[in-house]
């Protein structure tokens, strides 16, 4: 336990090595599966189970320590600073894909259409190609497709995520004002909205694949569309799971008005996926 003068340093940790083994089996199995190996699926499954076991164990230990009062102000500050910069690293991960999208739309597609330094490429390689967005390229990779409209499910999903940003704040107000009912109901609403978002996103993908012939293989439009929205959807799922854990802990009576780092971390993460979505809605769906 820490006091004002000492910092809590756990004396040993078995979960990291379990995590490393799980990660290696999961990713190694995935790589094997991509190569068409027959055993790989099982290895991947084992890796996934080990990883889940690690997550339960590691977070379980931390929650137990937190509830037993092992963490004081200094530890809390460490967690907060760590979480902020973790989210920053996630922002940079998305920046790579947004950067790719901007580069393709601003430079490579116009160049393929003969703009600026692309004149010769255009003339000698694909002189009938017209640079318009969205595009699946001069060789129409993936065949005929239709654009995903911004004003169907995507706009509903925008409303859902924005609303969930409000509900999670309402939950936070409930927590700091010690209104546990408000905390639990608003948080439950947030989790529900999060999962509804993911389900609608899946429905939208189904619509894209079956009705619009818009797939990951639909040239660079399909690539950027599914990569950006897919990684975002994955992050929403992770964020919703985090909030669900926080919800279960709230129901169990964890957290106090002063001491609730896990809640805030999950909420920050939730706002982060929310902001990324706004970027997606504007640049992937709308413009």
């Amino acid at each position, binding site marked *: *336990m820490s006091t004002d*003068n*000492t*910092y809590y*340093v*756990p*004396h*040993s940790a*078995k*979960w*990291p*090595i379990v*995590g*490393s*083994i799980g*990660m*290696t089996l999961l*990713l*190694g199995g*995935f*790589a094997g599966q*991509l190569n068409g190996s027959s055993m790989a699926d099982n290895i991947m499954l084992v890796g996934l189970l080990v990883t889940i076991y690690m997550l339960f164990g590691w977070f379980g230990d931390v929650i*137990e320590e937190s509830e*037993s009062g*092992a963490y004081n102000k*200094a530890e809390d*500050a*460490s967690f907060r*600073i*760590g979480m902020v910069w*973790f989210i920053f*690293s996630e922002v*940079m*991960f*998305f920046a*790579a*894909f947004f*950067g*790719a999208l901007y580069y*393709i739309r601003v430079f*490579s*597609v116009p160049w393929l259409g003969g703009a600026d330094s692309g004149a010769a490429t255009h003339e000698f*390689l694909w002189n009938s190609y017209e640079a318009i967005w969205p*595009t*699946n*390229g*001069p*060789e129409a*990779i*993936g065949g005929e497709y239709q654009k995903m409209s911004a004003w169907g499910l995507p706009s509903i999903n925008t409303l859902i995520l924005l609303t969930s940003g409000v509900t999670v704040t309402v939950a936070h107000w409930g927590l700091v004002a010690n209104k546990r009912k408000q905390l639990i109901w608003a948080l439950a609403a947030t989790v529900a909205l999060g999962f509804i978002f993911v389900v609608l996103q899946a429905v939208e993908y189904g619509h894209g694949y079956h009705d619009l012939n818009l*797939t*990951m*293989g639909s*040239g*660079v*439009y*399909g*690539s*950027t569309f599914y*990569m950006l929205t897919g990684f975002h959807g994955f992050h929403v799922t992770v964020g919703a799971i985090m909030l669900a854990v926080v919800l279960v802990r709230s129901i169990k009576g964890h957290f106090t008005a002063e001491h609730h780092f896990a809640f805030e971390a999950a909420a920050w993460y939730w706002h982060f996926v929310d902001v990324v979505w706004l970027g997606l809605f504007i640049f992937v769906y709308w413009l």
Partner: protein
Amino acid sequence: MATATATHEEHHDHGPAKGLMRWVTTTNHKDIGTLYLLFALLMFMIGGAMAMVIRLELFQPGLQFVDPGFFNQMTTVHALVMIFGGVMPAFVGLANWMLPIMIGGPDMALPRMNNWSFWILPFAFAMLLSTFFMDGGAPAGGWTIYPPLVLQGGNGFPFMIFAIHMMGISSVMGAINVIVTILNMRAPGMTLMKMPLFVWTWFITAYLLIAVMPVLAGAVTMLLTDRFFDTSFFNAAGGGDPVLFQHIFWFFGHPEVYILILPAFGIVSAIIPTFARKPLFGYSSMVYATSSIAFLSFIVWAHHMFTVGLPLEGELFFMYATMLIAVPTGVKVFNWISTMWKGSMTFETPMLFSIGFVIMFTIGGFSGLMLAIAPADFQYHDTYFVVAHFHYVLVTGAVYSIMAAAYYWLPKWTGNMYNETMGKWHFWLSTISVNVLFFPQHFLGLAGMPRRIPDYSVQFAEFNMWSSLGGFAFGLSQVFFCYIVYKTIQGGEKATDQVWEGADGLEWELSSPPPYHSFTTPPKIK
């Protein structure tokens, strides 16, 4: 509150656990630092063995020992192993050992995550190195993994991608830990501008890491989907662009090379004042110069791509922005020289490596300036001149600083002095051989010898022979280094707490070796 009480007692009373599991489950920054450093040394030897294969094949023109495909695997994996397995873990190891002590903190801020940062690495490198035994062998498209070439690799390709993901996760966690430690674990009175420069340079390096490692993760993920999931990011026929990969890669890659050198600046800034017996000249200008270099590193990436057909504005912008870096770097070099000016200098091994660093890193910096000139780069691009340039900054720069740090702090870590005579021999053998190894490569490059080829025209034969001889001698010198480290860990003359007469800083106030837990109560900062 049974749990709390138990934790409380263990926290105060325990030393290292017994047996192998101590190292697997440790949360102690000194143990993890040691693991990182030993792992880096192992990887340095593995990557070095690959370099020996490369120099052996290039000893004379024609194909003698390995086939061209294997040669390309050697160059590719040599680079990945040395960068991600050698230099970066060595710096993280030094950070683990020294940062908490230097700022008067009890440990790294997030000790369990610290353990995981390290223990991902052996698995990641096992995965990377296992590709040598797969169909199609290890990746052979160069460490820059440019598409479309890299997409044509064998079964090793996805394993390499995931190994890079794992190294990135490890680096990001390590960097977050460094940032949190520096922001939150300083002893009262240890203001930011009182921190040793090694702490400052690592602080800035950590920001570079969390900013660019995720970008690399994004880039390699797009490679993976381009090969296996039909995407067209880097395929012009689908509207993508292979040059896009180069932009994203070097947006990571250029800050990455500063990740490999900024901690070196910090090490040298610690060592030179000790042996010049003068405080560091221009401390605050060092901090600002390091920050400027870090900022500039984000806006110079396309100088690696002058020949891919950038628009003229791009060539000009990236040329001038790159040249700006010479200004803060010059500030640093002049500060180091001014620190030595009129100092009462002695030349123990750490100082020799540091002075070697200042001189030879500057040579690498100057060849970098030559490469920064876009029109001239059309001649130098992808030649041995580039190879000579980045080996001067990385071997006689980064690696020399790590050697200097090892000699400087080994007595503190182990409580034993290394053998000074052997240390000096190691320095001079390394310094002579490394220049025989890399200096001729400048001439080879200027004469037009391309990099990443196993065979070459006969007019390049003599310089290549010299280079290879230097390479073998340098390799042997590093085996000697391992022997010196081993002997020092085994025993030797006992080191004093102060170790070096002119040394200043919190680490020298602890015993040699320091207690398992240092500064459980914060020290008084002068």
